Structures are given as C-alpha cells and as structure tokens.
C-alpha cells in the first residue's frame, strides 16, 4: 500500500547504506519505546506499547480449563493477534487475517517455541514462566492463558512491538489464587474456590524480547518503519532472553539469505537485545509505578 516514488526508494536505501536512516536513526537504533500497563482493566494483565507510530495492545486473560491429556501437568497458553482496520484500511473485512495469522504464528514460535509446546516455557533452564506453574489440579484443572494482541496503529515492526507488549502484559498479570476443596477424588470434578483477594504474579524476567532484523540491500536494520519494510528483501526475527539464549527464530520474506549472514544476524540480535531488554524493563517498571499511583 505504500506508494513510493523511485526517488524516495533510492533515498531510503541510500540512507540505510550510509547508516543514516530517513528519520535520523542509525541502522541498529530503535525508535523511542513507550509502555503503558493495565490499559484493559477487565483483563488479568494488559499493556500498550508504542514504537514510533506503531501502537499495539496486548491483553492476558486467564480461564480455568482442563490440561491436555498428553501433558496433564501443564497449563496452556495461546496467542492470537488481530489487526484492526483502524491501523490501515487494507485490514478491513478479512483483509487483515493473513497478516494476523502470520504474526500469531511467529509470536508463538518466538515466545512459546512452536505449537508442540516443547519450547521456551517448557525448558526449565530458560527460567521463564513454566507451564507447570499453571496447573491447579494435575490432569483436571489448569489455567489457560489467552494472550490477545491488537494492532491499533501500524508503522512497521509489528512483531517486536507485539512481543514487547506481551512481555509487559505478562508482568502486569495477576492470576487469582485457587483453593481446591478437599475431599474430592477419583473421577469427580473437584470444586474450586477462586480467591478474590490474592493474586499470583508471574516472574517475567526470563521472557524474551523479539528483535527483527530487516534486510534492505546489503545491510540489515532493526525496527523498520512501513516505508523501510516495503524495501526489504527478507527479515529474520530472533527472540533472545536475559541470559542471551536464543529462544526462537523465524525468517520471513522472499529472498534467500546466506547462512553465514544469519549467524551474523544472531550475534547482532544478541547484542541489541541487551539494550532493548534494559530499556523495556525500565519502561515497564515506570509504567507499573504510574498505574499504581492512579
């Protein structure tokens, strides 16, 4: 949808080549990030992240459900993304579905490690929220976390913004403490009593951030705007946690990339992630402080 003249295209590409992008950033500089938490009061946790003109909201809702029979000791997490037509007219009707699906799958892969569930949340050493902490009664009751992302305004790099918003929303999430009535056993459905006063907080220090490196010409940049994305040949999204572990990776876009460049990209992403994590954490802390104040 971005209608660019030949001159504009050259200007964008040239800027990237010279490490001075059209908005004055360097290739590996993020736009200012702004976080607001608790924006959706009826959700268990929510956050809004603005990255330049990109504006996304993530919410976490917890519902009591039944664990998967193959994994009776684990809760479930699902991520859905919706692109609102307010962000761009092409999302109107079913227009946003394809992108929404692509973003949902990429987020699942980057944050949960794919559909099999044997990913990030699963491995104890990544120190994130283990799915086992979501179990209430083994094999019978667990928490199902529904993470919903909504793109309100779009100016590129939706995936990184959504990833950051989900991380912020998770740290904002309080899950009611559940008391299970004693005595119920066997095949009976246990009676549960959901506490009104006590909430469990997640430790989100291990939740990764997503760094998308967009390849334009021979260089790659972080946090591309819509105009810059229109010039990309391919993009690689890498999720990295505090420890510097790669938690997920996805490549989009048509052109092939040389494997050595991918390895190079990973090491760059690892480097950038540190700054992003620090910045995000301090933004989240500031947002939480603002929320508690009001």
């Amino acid at each position: 949808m971005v209608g660019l003249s030949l001159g504009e295209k050259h200007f964008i590409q040239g800027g990237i080549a010279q490490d001075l992008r059209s908005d004055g950033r360097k290739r590996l500089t993020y736009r200012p990030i702004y976080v607001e938490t608790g924006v959706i009061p009826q959700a268990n946790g929510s956050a809004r992240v603005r990255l330049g003109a990109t504006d996304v909201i993530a919410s976490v809702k917890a519902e009591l459900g039944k664990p998967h029979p193959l994994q009776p000791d684990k809760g479930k997490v699902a991520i859905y993304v919706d692109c609102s037509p307010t962000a761009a007219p092409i999302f109107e009707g079913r227009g946003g579905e394809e992108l929404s699906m692509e973003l949902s799958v990429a987020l699942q892969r980057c944050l949960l490690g794919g559909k099999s569930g044997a990913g990030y949340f699963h491995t104890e050493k990544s120190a994130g929220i283990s799915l086992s902490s979501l179990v209430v009664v083994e094999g019978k009751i667990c928490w199902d976390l529904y993470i919903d992302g909504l793109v309100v305004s779009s100016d590129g790099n939706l995936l990184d913004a959504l990833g950051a918003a989900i991380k912020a929303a998770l740290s904002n999430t309080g899950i009611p403490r559940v008391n299970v009535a004693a005595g119920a056993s066997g095949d009976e459905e246990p009676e549960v009593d959901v506490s009104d006063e006590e909430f469990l907080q997640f430790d989100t220090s291990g939740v990764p951030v997503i760094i998308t490196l967009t390849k334009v010409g021979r260089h790659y940049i972080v946090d591309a705007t819509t105009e810059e994305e229109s010039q990309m040949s391919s993009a690689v999204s890498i999720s990295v946690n505090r420890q510097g572990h790669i938690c997920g990776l996805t490549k989009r876009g048509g052109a092939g990339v040389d494997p050595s460049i991918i390895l190079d990209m990973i090491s760059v992403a690892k480097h950038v992630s540190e700054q992003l994590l620090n910045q995000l954490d301090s933004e989240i802390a500031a947002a939480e402080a603002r929320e508690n104040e009001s």
Partner: protein
Amino acid sequence: MEYVSPEGLRLDGRRPMEMRQIRGEIGAVAKADGSAVFEMGNTKVIAAVYGPREVQNRSQQMNDQALVRCEYSMANFSTGDRMRKPKGDRRSTEISLVIRQTMEACIMTHLMPRSQIDIFVQVLQADGGTRSACINAATLALADAGIPMRDLVTSCSSGYLNSTALLDLNYVEDSAGGPDVTVGFLPKLDKVTLLQMDAKLPLDIFENVMQLAIEGCKAVANYIRELLLENTKQLEYRRGV
C-alpha cells in the same frame, strides 16, 4: 433486581439523570487522516478515518457524492468474557451500518464526489453504550480529518428500569432487559438522526426516555465542541499563527 436504590442512586453511584465520565482524545492513530479515542465510563473505542481518497472499488464510485464506508469491530479482550467471534458477525454488521448511516447523514458528501471516506471503529472496552461511544468517536475523528460536516452528530443512550428513566446505561443496566433507547442527535440543527429501541415501552414514558437521551447528546456535543476548540487552538499555536 434493584437498579435504583430508594435513595436515588444507581449501582455505580450515579443519579438517574447523570452520564458516566466522558473523555475524548484526538489523534490516536498517527497514520490515519483523522482519529480519536472516546470513552464513556468503562466503554472505550478508537475511531480512525481514512479519506477522502480515491475510490478503491471503481464500481462503487459515485459521481455526485462521496462514498462513506464504515467497519465496526470489537477486540477479543473488550468484554468480560473473552470472545472469539468471527469478523463480520450479524451484530457488528448491523452496528457498522447504523454508524455509517448516521455519519453519512452529517457529512457533506456532495462536496467530495468520486471519493471515498472510510471510518473504522474499534471497541477496546465494552461496558454498555458502545454504539453511542462509536458515533461520538467517529464524529471527533471526522472533524480531525477535516471532513466537512453539517453538524457534530453525537449520541447517547437512555433506558427505563425500576420505573425510572436512566441516562447512559452501563453494561449491567443494559443487560437488565429493560428498554434501551439510543439516540443520535444533531445539536445545532436540533434534529434526531438515529433512534433505536429494543423492548416495549408505553408511549408517554418513551417520550421522557427519549428526551433524556437527547439531553445526554447535547451534553456530549458541548464536550466535543470544547475538545475540538482546544485542539484547534493547539494546532494554531504549533503553527505559530
């Protein structure tokens, strides 16, 4: 169920003729030609306007007036119960149509022939009165986009519970099953452009209830006018006029 206590207070502490807190904000979506957030209590919607621009589907182009389109959608997290509804369900389609008709009636479409105006409204939180909030947000967004309008159309709902007319029903009051009258109103022209009611209501009571909703619309209009005035002053200031 007691929706109005004998002391004359509603469940949330309002009196029957009081509106919830309203708040508007212009310019929430940077990329849109005009946008606004509008809140009525816990109901919060975003509206974005794209246009006037080239008509996307040539067969829909009209030579004497602009094409106005509207899409209403609800975020999955907007309701207390997380909903997974496919896009374009009946209710959304109906509300889209209602908003489009209401807005079309106040846009001076004849000034913009062969062009298209898109209004997108997104519900972030639903706590009763989403229709009204959407119309108010759309009005602000259209004004922000600089689209010529006959008047600022505003909307408010009212209902009738416990033999009392209530202004601006919230979700709990709305789900009580009583009548819910939504009015769209052109304050300067003093004309009703939208009127919807479900459930039955005797005529003499209906008159009061509708009048109450109109009063609500007028209050919203005053607020919106102030907001736009403030916004214009800001723009002037920024341009250094």
